[in-house]
């Protein structure tokens, strides 16, 4: 395998800057899905660090983490950070969820959970030469349609589709295990016929090689990554605290957060 060290470094830099950016933007916008954005950011950094060498279509099924996607697109130069100055303001191009066509990379409107995986399956089936990466959440996996999608993916051997579960173990009000648990998700997927890889979802060195192999067509079977993540990752007072699913950041909290992020 190609030496991926440069991409590791690149993705780490992406994550570092993206965490700072999205914290500032949520503070300024006076709201936003900060917790999930911080859990998914290393997944996005890993995928997009490889974008310069391999093309793929990205479907963010857990659409409420749009902000993480936008700051990642800043990293690859698709937009400028200033383009997000009016994020969530009246008349902005960007609201709380992805809007198809708002950017070149945003090809599907999502927001209601449990839709993106089925659509990604349709895309993968309709164009076997295309690579599709679909990110879903563990909370989103409460939706029955996610499991319909997984069954379809397995049945039709959609090896050009990579599904990454941002398994941050929290939903809006509580921990997933206290609501509708997806514990042993690897076994659940295995029972459907999908071999899922469990990785630390904040470990760039673990994520990139799998995404790289997928983009290189090395997998002959459908691939699912269970990315074990922490909601609010990187800001201690947000980590694993349900109230940070969607919340304003106060001025004193911002200073504390940026200090922790090294911003």
């Amino acid at each position, binding site marked *: 395998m190609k030496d991926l060290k440069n991409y590791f470094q690149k993705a780490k830099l992406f994550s570092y800057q993206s965490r700072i950016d999205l914290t500032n933007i949520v503070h300024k916008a006076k709201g936003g899905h900060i917790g999930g954005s911080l859990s998914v950011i290393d997944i996005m950094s890993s995928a997009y660090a490889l974008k310069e060498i391999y093309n793929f279509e990205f479907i963010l099924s857990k659409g409420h983490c749009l902000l993480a996607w936008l700051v990642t697109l800043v990293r690859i130069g698709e937009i400028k950070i200033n383009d997000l100055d009016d994020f969530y303001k009246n008349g902005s191009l960007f609201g709380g969820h992805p809007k198809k066509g708002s950017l070149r990379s945003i090809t599907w409107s999502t927001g209601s959970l449990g839709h993106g995986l089925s659509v990604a399956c*349709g895309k993968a*089936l309709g164009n076997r030469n295309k690579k599709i990466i679909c990110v879903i959440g563990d909370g989103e996996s409460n939706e029955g349609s996610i499991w*319909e999608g997984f069954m379809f993916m397995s049945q039709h051997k959609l090896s050009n589709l990579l599904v990454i579960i941002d398994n941050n173990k929290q939903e809006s009000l509580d921990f997933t295990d206290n609501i509708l648990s997806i514990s042993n998700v690897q076994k659940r997927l295995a029972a459907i016929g999908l071999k899922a890889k469990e990785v630390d979802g904040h470990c760039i060195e673990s994520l990139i090689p799998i995404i790289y192999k997928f983009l290189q067509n090395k997998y002959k079977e459908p691939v699912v990554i269970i990315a074990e993540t922490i909601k609010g990752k990187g800001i201690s007072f947000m980590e694993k605290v349900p109230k940070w699913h969607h919340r304003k950041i106060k001025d004193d909290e911002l200073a504390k957060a940026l200090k922790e992020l090294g911003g």
Partner: protein
Amino acid sequence: MRNSIARKLLEIASQDEKLILLAGDIGFRIFDEFIEKFPDRFINCGIAEQNMIGVAAGLASEGMKPVVYTIIPFLIMRAYEQIRVDIGINNQSLILIGVGGGLAYDKLGSTHHAYEDIALMRSIPNMNIYSPFSPINAEDCLTKAWDKLNGKNQNPSYIRLCKGGEPDIPETKEIKTNIFLNGILNSSKCIVSTGAISSMIDTHIKKKKTSKTICHIIISEISAETLLELINILIESSIKKVLIIEEHFESGGLFEFIAGILVKTKFRIELENLCLDKKYIFEIFDREKLLENNGINLTLLDKWILENE
């Protein structure tokens, strides 16, 4: 209608390799020839309608032309949010074919009846709604839906079928696009209907001596454009009274649609209607009896004709 639609799908698929047929484990035997000829373009998505609509939308976004077929409550109601988000909001063009309009699945019970589907589909912007009245007309509706899918706006369509074994109405002629006339427009009243119940009305009218002079207009597309055209025809023909019959609840159906358009014009036509009572139906009877017991009693049609002679 099922068989004629299956025949037409086969014909279109032979001409356009982008057509891909998705079914929700429904369509026993009717797609045998399609599957034999185009095994790679038939996907039985299983009993997973939400996923089926999402997959269809994804296929459409990759340039395929999906046609999705299953029983109406599972197609329209089970997967309604997928239709809204993945077809509506994401602006994908495909064709939804629902079987079992109204009380077609009479004895299968209330879970299989469909009297809310037109209202639901009217709420999806850009969705064309076809409600064919005969096997030949069903083929025509599919052709029109296919043309729209391939047209400039590439709009999606919903085709509401009855089931199987419906007769054709041979004397009917298309006087305007999607508006069919049975009889002559020479009286001050007429009946307007849509869908498979139209042939029952036709048979009923022909049996009754009193009804010989009544004219019957059948609408095969539920759209503002078609209904505005209908109102123009009614006005031009000096029709003063109209009885609208539909195998659907009043809410969001043909009657309300026509009335809504009419009140925005300066013209006044007296509208009455026969539709299904707004309640779930639990009795086990065949379709005709269920219609009679639940709001569409055709003796009321005779009464209306007599009262308005």
